[in-house]
């Protein structure tokens, strides 16, 4: 490993420790790393967007490809800049209107397809026979129905509605407990990676200085 590389890895190791120091308490080292990364990330992101989005989607299309229809979205994008002025900032609403209208229209079909129809299909795909698969499928249906009852807003959770919605929130809580428990492994693995990085840096330091 070259000295320059060692120095850069040292910077990375130092910043890693700066962030970890936050676990003890807020301190100047954490604040330093936090501000440094905010600046670096914004700069990096700006240039990333500039080169990979602005140039091909806006600049090249208008300047080289002759796709003048892109003047419209470009105008809408520039209209966002009226927000710098108090008097004209209402103009930016036109751009926001396009932005939100287009997104909302896409959402309707997308979420009905992915979150409703696909889930419905999976739920009623298995005949309820008296074997392991059938019984699981039956229990899943019971769970889905009771959890849906929990989400009823316009009926009081009293009487039979109360009992079913109670089962529903129990099912939901089991789901959350399982989600939490399953995620621990991946989170520990992330920390292991950082520790292994630091161990590797210490090893390369000792190797470099003839240890």
């Amino acid at each position: 490993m070259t000295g320059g590389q060692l120095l850069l890895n040292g910077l990375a190791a130092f910043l890693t420790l700066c962030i970890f120091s936050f676990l003890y308490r807020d301190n100047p080292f954490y604040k330093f790393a936090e501000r440094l990364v905010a600046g670096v990330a914004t700069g990096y992101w700006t240039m990333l967007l500039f080169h990979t989005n602005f140039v091909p989607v806006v600049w090249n299309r208008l300047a080289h490809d002759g796709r003048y229809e892109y003047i419209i979205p470009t105008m809408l994008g520039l209209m966002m800049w009226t927000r710098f002025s108090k008097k004209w900032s209402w103009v930016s609403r036109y751009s926001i209107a396009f932005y939100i209208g287009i997104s909302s229209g896409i959402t309707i079909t997308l979420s009905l397809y992915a979150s409703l129809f696909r889930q419905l299909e999976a739920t009623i795909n298995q005949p309820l026979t008296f074997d392991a698969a059938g019984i699981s499928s039956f229990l899943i249906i019971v769970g889905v129905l009771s959890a849906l009852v929990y989400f009823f807003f316009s009926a009081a959770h009293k009487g039979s509605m109360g009992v079913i919605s109670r089962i529903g929130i129990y099912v939901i809580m089991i789901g959350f407990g399982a989600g939490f428990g399953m995620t621990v492994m991946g989170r520990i693995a992330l920390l292991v990676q950082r520790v292994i990085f630091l161990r590797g840096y210490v090893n390369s330091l000792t190797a470099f200085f003839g240890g």
Partner: protein
Amino acid sequence: MTKKLIMLLCLVIISSSLAIGQEAIPDSAGLAPPAPAPPTNVRVVDRPNDAGHGLIVKWDLSPDDSAGLNNVAIYEVFRAGSPDGEFISRGVVPRGITEYVDFDETEPNSEHPNPNFMPVNSTWFYKILAISDNQVRSEFSSVASGTTIENWIHTGKIPIGVAAITFTVFLIIFISSARKGKKMYVRPLAGINAVDDAIGRATEMGKPILYILGLGTAGDIATIAGFTILSRVAKRTAEYQTKVIVPVQDPVVLAVAQETVRTAYLEAGRPDQYNPENVFFVTSMQFPYVAAVNGIMLREHPATNFYMGVFYAESLILAETGNIAGSIQISGTDQVAQLPFFVAATDYTLIGEELYAASAYLSQEPVQLGTLKAQDYTKAIVMAFIILGAIAITAGWPFLRNLVTINL
């Protein structure tokens, strides 16, 4: 299922057809292995639900496919632009399959010529042969032709359209009945009741409220729900003269959040109290954003933290740091994977649909509450559908399941 299969089949083309090009080699005894009979009854139909760039070739199995000589391995499909033109291979499918979807929707241009492109209303001629285990080719089948047709409506997606329109009708019915003054009951939601307490607490302590809109864009519906709740929160804090801090990570979200807070202060009759610098941009990247928000939490010690919108892995980092800072925390997201962490680490959580319902709850306007009723009725229909669908499939009638199976 079969349709998905066909869609995949049509992708075959390159890889496998290369393998078939080899000629059959007679075996050493000089006895050539027998050739299978070709498939019969070839016909070509339009590929449904497309913009007119595909056809489906169908045939009946060769008599030697799983019967007769039982030596068919694969079928190879050939296409030409005219009956006596040059037939080129389009792909192969394994034995037992009687369909091949042929399509090419890449329009040629000056840089990328594409002779295989299938324009709308173009007629193509097909013939098929069977290839045996020993690579012996059958005779060609008869030639069949078909014309690509541009389909106007995607019939497979109609159930989604019907669902969306039914839902809209429900919404309009309940909103108009609410406008007529019909009283609607909504059950209490703990997370909503906590909002007022949380604002009160901040006022008493003289500390700010931190409102996090998550990592979504201004086009994400969960973020828009977050704006609506922000507006209600900001209106009340304006009345109490409590500071709301909104750090954001997307410039369009920044613009909308500033406008939302400004309007809330205006409606509360305190436009002078609005400070645009309290709604500010931090950075666009996930973890640098989290680092900055963590810093704000530990230095400003907000009395209350709101998390409303789209959240990913940062959910637990933010919620635990908020806990260290001793803030009351109310969260809501549409990200199922993050809900467990919000439930564990924040004081109140709006679970999925509750996030969208929150704006109606906070407004208490009858029109808004009417939409909740429409959601409930739709939910009841969904539940009935599950029960009937499960009974039907158990009885061996898959029609309800097929109704919700969308073949894109």
